[in-house]
């Protein structure tokens, strides 16, 4: 997917910005706070309805504005023209998204239509943070490929919130728990089993991509592996999996009632990343965290590309600030072979390693939310 043109109004410190995007790499240079990341956030919002920095729409508004809008015009591999317009207005306080000039009933309907991979300092918790970070990483990849998976996730979360509300209120409404808990269990079981199946399949398919990515990011051999650890010990591929799942839920009912929440299920599972047999989260060095994260993202890119027949758009936000020259050059080299890429950097050394002499690349400089200077890298 190629983003040909991007228009931003009233997003963070951008008043009105319009960028004709190159088909190769767009390098955005500027000091901290110049509004580089905002351009990437805008692209992320267009493609996924979300920013990778914040989930609060209001915080994205330019000061004193009550409405922001982002518009993008795309071309797919099959040369079809696509467009997205996203508007947030403080009244009614939610986003409205139009895809190809038709209003989308739900933001979820956008996911997958414009595949995107983003890497920014906000993604560090994927290797260093709690299990939820890795679940989100996995869920977002699968959701872009399988809309039904996203629908199952949404249904699961909804049923989970309802079940938890019932459990939390079990003192005051014991009769409701007795008469309706199994109804929510049935609803949870149905989506949970489908989620588990898909996640298991994903892990199996994704590992070879991760191995290959590791090999291209680092020279020395390191053994990377993924392990899906389920909090619900059932075989999701069993024919009676849904019934088994319900039975397990029923067995844990007393614990769940006592804790006032659902203590097992896909929302409690872990995707463990192992490096040379050790849990990355707890045991990896700073350098290893970086390498694994970049590899995960590279693998995400190639995995999506293969399965969607459409190269995703790649966003690299401020990933070079901590890399030494050699690694910086290495990553830029890798990126050069991928599809359309947007890179931000406060480090002007980036320019030295930026693939020169390519007409499809471009550099822009940002200052206070304004594109100050346009220099074609010849």
């Amino acid at each position, binding site marked *: 997917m190629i983003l040909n043109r991007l228009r931003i109004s009233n997003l963070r410190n951008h008043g009105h910005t319009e960028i004709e995007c190159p088909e190769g790499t767009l390098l955005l240079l500027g000091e901290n706070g110049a509004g580089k990341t905002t351009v990437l956030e805008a692209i992320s919002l267009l493609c996924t309805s979300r920013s990778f920095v914040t989930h609060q729409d209001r915080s994205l508004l330019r000061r004193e504005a009550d409405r922001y809008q982002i518009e993008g015009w795309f071309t797919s591999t099959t040369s079809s023209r696509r467009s997205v317009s996203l508007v947030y207005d403080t009244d009614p306080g939610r986003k409205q998204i139009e895809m190809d000039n038709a209003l989308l009933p739900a933001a979820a309907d956008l996911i997958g239509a414009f595949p995107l991979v983003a890497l920014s300092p906000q993604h560090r918790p994927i290797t260093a943070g709690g299990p939820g970070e890795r679940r989100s990483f996995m869920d977002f990849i699968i959701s872009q490929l399988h809309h*039904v998976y996203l629908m199952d996730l949404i249904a699961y979360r909804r049923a989970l919130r309802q079940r938890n509300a019932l459990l939390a209120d079990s003192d005051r409404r014991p009769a409701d728990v007795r008469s309706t808990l199994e109804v*929510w269990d049935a609803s949870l079981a149905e989506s949970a089993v489908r989620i588990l199946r898909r996640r298991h399949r994903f892990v199996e398919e994704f590992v070879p991509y991760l191995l290959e990515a590791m090999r291209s990011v680092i020279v020395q051999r390191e053994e990377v592996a993924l392990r899906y650890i389920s909090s619900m010990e059932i075989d999701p591929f069993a024919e009676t999996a849904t019934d088994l799942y319900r039975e397990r839920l029923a067995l844990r009912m007393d614990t769940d009632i006592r804790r006032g929440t659902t203590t097992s299920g896909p929302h409690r599972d872990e995707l463990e990343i192992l490096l040379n047999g050790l849990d990355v989260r707890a045991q990896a060095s700073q350098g290893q965290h970086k390498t694994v994260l970049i590899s995960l993202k590279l693998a995400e890119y190639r995995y999506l590309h293969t399965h969607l027949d459409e190269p995703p758009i790649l966003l690299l936000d401020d990933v070079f600030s901590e890399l030494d020259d050699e690694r910086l050059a290495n990553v830029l080299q890798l990126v050069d072979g991928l599809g359309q890429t947007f890179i931000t950097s406060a480090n002007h050394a980036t320019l030295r390693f930026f693939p020169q002499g390519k007409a499809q690349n471009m550099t822009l400089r940002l200052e206070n939310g304004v594109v100050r200077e346009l220099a074609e890298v010849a």
Partner: protein
Amino acid sequence: MLSTSPSLDALISEFARLPGIGRKTAQRLAMYVLKRPREEAEQMAAALLHVKDNVRTCSICCNITEDDPCSICSSTRRDHRVICVVEESNDVFAIERTNEFRGLYHVLGGRLSPLEGIGPDDLHVRELLDRSREGVDEIILAMNPNVEGEATTLYLSRLLKPMGLRITRIARGIPMGSDLEFTDAATITRAFEGRIAL
């Protein structure tokens, strides 16, 4: 943001209370009312009070009505052996518009939702059980196709099945007049699950 008129502010606040109405829209509505002749405001005020004074729920189907039992429940031309269970009165209007369904209704007054503190006792479930005990052959469950609607459907079917009635649910699938190409994957999946033999 307060105007220079407390009366206008009060009206704006009232409008803003309505579902789906934000502050800006409330201001627009209030300004509109202000600009229209006094008779129109009187008509609106009278209609609001009239609704509160005259509309009640039918003692049989729990739908809103001015006469009890409602015109549907008291009709001799309808099939009293079939009851279609819906969440809200709006759903009755929607089904009645089709002129196809000739049975009776039962309005639950919502759906199971612990998040909103709604359990079976907050819905007209007991009334449904009572009227299902005699002279009923079939109960059609027509809840909304979402998580809460599904849960309510399952809850009611488990409650009603032991009574030996025919329990059905409405089909979920692709809306007529829409293109498969533009139908979301979840709807298509459901439609496949609900496929029928020809």
